Each structure stands twice: as structure tokens, then as C-alpha cells.
């Protein structure tokens, strides 16, 4: 139930990103990246492997859906790595004790901001390293800054519903589970 709901919500976020956010009639250099926010929330509430899988799938969808024109696989690779790293770091450092600790909304929003910045930087770095003529240092700095800002502003729209869903259904599914197990996973 939880996995199916999460899958549906991430799918909706990916489609919303490509069909709604990308058509907003503003002349910005970079728009908000809602998919990063969705992947971060999933990564915070699941294990590294599942987070990497979720990131890969969402990134691949972003790569394939129009109007993406970059090399297929770029987003998939970066999102997969982002999901894995966020989940691994949070599991090993962030959650005190790891028992029954709910991910707070502020944590999720903060991690989203950091991850969005990281994604922007990695995207720009890939562009610079592969000699993409569209990327130069000043442009990239502005794009990364504005993109991160836009993502931070828009991310509560995505983070809060998904986080709520994942926390709420974890409670119902695992309410009867006793013992030192953390009710995480898909």
C-alpha cells in the first residue's frame, strides 16, 4: 500500500514537473526541480537500495520525457546517486538511534535544499567537463543558484504530502510490529 502510493505520487510529481512546471509562462533561466524533492523524501524514509532504485526510475523518466534534449541517462545517474547518498548518510548519521524516529518536515526540506544544490552543481560540472557549449562558469553559477532557490521555495508542495503519506502508512502497516526493528522499507 505504502509502496504503491509512493510510486503513484512520484509518478505524478515527474509528470507535473514535465507538463506543468516546465510550461510556466515565466522567463526564468531555471525552474524548480520537484523531482529532486520527491526522491529526497523517499530516500529519507527508506533504505539506500530502494532510494537508488527510486532515483534511477524518476531520473530515467525525466531523461526520456520531452522536452529533454540532453544525453539519456544523465538524470538517471545523478538521481540514483543522490538517492543512495542521502539515504546512506541519513541512516548512518542523521537519525538518532534509528528507532521509531519520524523524519521531521524541516529535516526533509533542509536535505532537499542541500540535494538540489548538489544536483545543480553536478549537472553544471558534467556540462563543463563534457564541453557543453551552453554551460560556462558564470551562467552555471546563476543557474544553480536560481534553480536551487526555486526548488527550495516550491519543495514543500511535494515534500509535505509524500512525507505525510509515508509516515502515516508506516504507522498503520507496522503498528503491531514489536521489537527493535525500525519500520522502514517499501
Amino acid at each position, binding site marked *: 500500500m505504502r509502496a504503491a502510493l509512493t510510486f503513484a505520487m512520484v509518478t505524478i510529481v515527474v509528470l507535473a514537473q514535465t507538463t506543468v512546471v516546465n*510550461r510556466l509562462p515565466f522567463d526564468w533561466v*531555471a525552474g524548480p526541480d520537484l523531482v529532486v524533492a520527491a526522491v529526497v523524501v523517499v530516500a529519507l524514509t527508506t533504505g539506500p537500495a530502494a532510494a537508488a532504485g527510486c532515483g534511477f526510475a524518476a531520473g530515467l523518466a525525466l531523461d526520456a520525457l*520531452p522536452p529533454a534534449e540532453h544525453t539519456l541517462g544523465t538524470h538517471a545517474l545523478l538521481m540514483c546517486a543522490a538517492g543512495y547518498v542521502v539515504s546512506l548518510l541519513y541512516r548512518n548519521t542523521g537519525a538518532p538511534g534509528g528507532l521509531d524516529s519520524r523524519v521531521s518536515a524541516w529535516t526533509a526540506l533542509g536535505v532537499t535544499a542541500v540535494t538540489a544544490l548538489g544536483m545543480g552543481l553536478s549537472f553544471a560540472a558534467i556540462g563543463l567537463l563534457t564541453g557543453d557549449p551552453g554551460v560556462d562558469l558564470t551562467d552555471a553559477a546563476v543557474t544553480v543558484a536560481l*534553480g536551487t532557490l526555486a526548488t527550495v521555495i516550491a519543495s514543500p508542495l511535494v515534500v509535505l504530502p509524500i512525507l505525510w503519506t509515508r509516515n502515516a502508512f508506516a504507522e498503520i502497516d507496522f503498528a503491531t510490529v514489536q521489537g527493535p526493528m525500525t519500520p522502514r522499507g517499501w
Partner: protein
Amino acid sequence: MFRDSSRSRLTLLALVAAAVVLLVLDGRAGTDPVTGTARAGAELAFAPIADGVSRVTGPVATAYEGVRQGPGAAERIAELEEANAGLESELRSAELDEGRAEQLEDLLHLSGLGGYEIVPAQAITHVTSQGYEHTATLDAGTGSGVEKDMTVVNGRGLVGKVVQAGARTSTVQLATDHSSSVGARLEGSGKIGVVGGARVPGAPEADLTYELFDMEAQIEPGDRIVTLGSHEGAPFVPGVPIGTVEEVHVSPGALSRVAAIEPAVDHASLDAVGVVVGGPDDDPRDSLLPPEPDPEGDR
């Protein structure tokens, strides 16, 4: 410190490997069956949803415009009164405009344009999430006869070229994209050059720059530029207005002259565009040349 099960690491490894394989496959020249199928599949899912969003957001966008313009209504009345006075005087200069229209027509005929078949389409996305590509998605695809490497125009001039065509949508690389380059020539003299979206070193800041190969050529602000045209009309058909020269930049020792171009099309607010799907029966290549060959013979 960062403990993780080996199975989880294996999963990550497999996913990263898959992503790298995709990167390599798609990075190679030509269309790859795997990535091509992935894009076609994604496009199948995208088209109906984008249609739906268009239908839903149409009224919302109209309402938003209405609300946004509400407070400015008083200003608008003053503005309209002023415009009315302006129009009255403009009426007198209508003859001038007629002359301009004739010039444009002549310009198009000179390039051998005419008899092109155009599929109308609407731009449904404008920005990409990372913001480095200048692309737009159109709501017309191979079902309407749109193919890769077709010219996209609107009522004012050149928009770009089709880089990907799916069944119901297609992706257009705008002329202002950094990797876009369009063969172009000056309206009057026919001097050829390249119009691109990339920043030319030492050139003024502009959405479009025009690099003229002939150092001796006369080029002045206000000169208009049209497409030169490619063989078989792909990717660019001849004679489509690109823009007006805004500023000419001469740098000592450079091999070409560079001019900043004011695009004929407002690329930030694309709406209705046309994809040129059919060229004239004859190869337009030679009809591009003006009747009188240039004595300098630098073409």
C-alpha cells in the same frame, strides 16, 4: 562508519552501470534503438497528459491575465486614448507600411520561398528544469507530418528546427540555443554568415549573434537577416527572416565580423508556430541567388 549491506551496494552498482550504458548508447551519433524506444514510449505517455493540462490551464491562464491587468485598467484607458491618436497619424503612413509589406514579399520571393506547406502547432513547454537548453515542445508530431530537421517558423520569422519528433509531440531547438547555428545572409547584399545562440568571444552580449565571413562587407544596424537555406530544405528552408542587426562589433585582427541580432521572433513567448513540412517541387538552391551575381564573387 557508513555501513551498508553488500546487497544494497550491488543494487547501486547495477543501477549505475545501467545509467552509464544508457549514457554511452545515447552519446553515440545516430539514433539508437534502445534510447529511441525509451523516448518514443515516454512521448506516448506525455502527449495525452500535456493535452489535458493544456485544456485545464487555458482558462486559468486567461483568468490570471484578467486579474493581473485589472488594477491597470485606468492606465490602460489613458494608454488607449494615446494609442488612438497614434493610430490616426499612423493611418496616414499606411502607404509606407504597404511599401514595407511589398519589400518583405520581394525578399521572400527573392529567396525562392513560396509553395511551402506549413503545419500549425502550439508551443506547450518553454523551459527545462536545468535551464541550459533552449528548447520548446510542440503539440504536433509525426502524425501531422512533422519530422526531424524541419524548419519551425511563426508569423514573424524563424523559431528553430525540429530535433526530435514523436507521434504527437515534437521538440524544437530554438535558434537562440547555444548549440544552434543557422546559415544566414544579409537582406540586401546577400553576404553569408552564421547566426548562432552561442556567445562569440569578444562579441557584444546578445541572444543571437551573426558572424559574417566577409570583413569588407557593409553591415549596419537595421539590416535584416534571412536564412540562407540548406540543401533539400533540411534543416532550414531559405528566406525566413531571422532578425535585425542591432550592433556591429569589429575587433582588430578577427577573421570575421560579428553583429548582435535582435531576433524577429520573441523566443520567450512562443505560442502559435508553423512547421514547414513540404518544400517546393524544385530544389530551391539556385533560386536563392539574386539575379545579378556579386562582382566580388565572394559567395
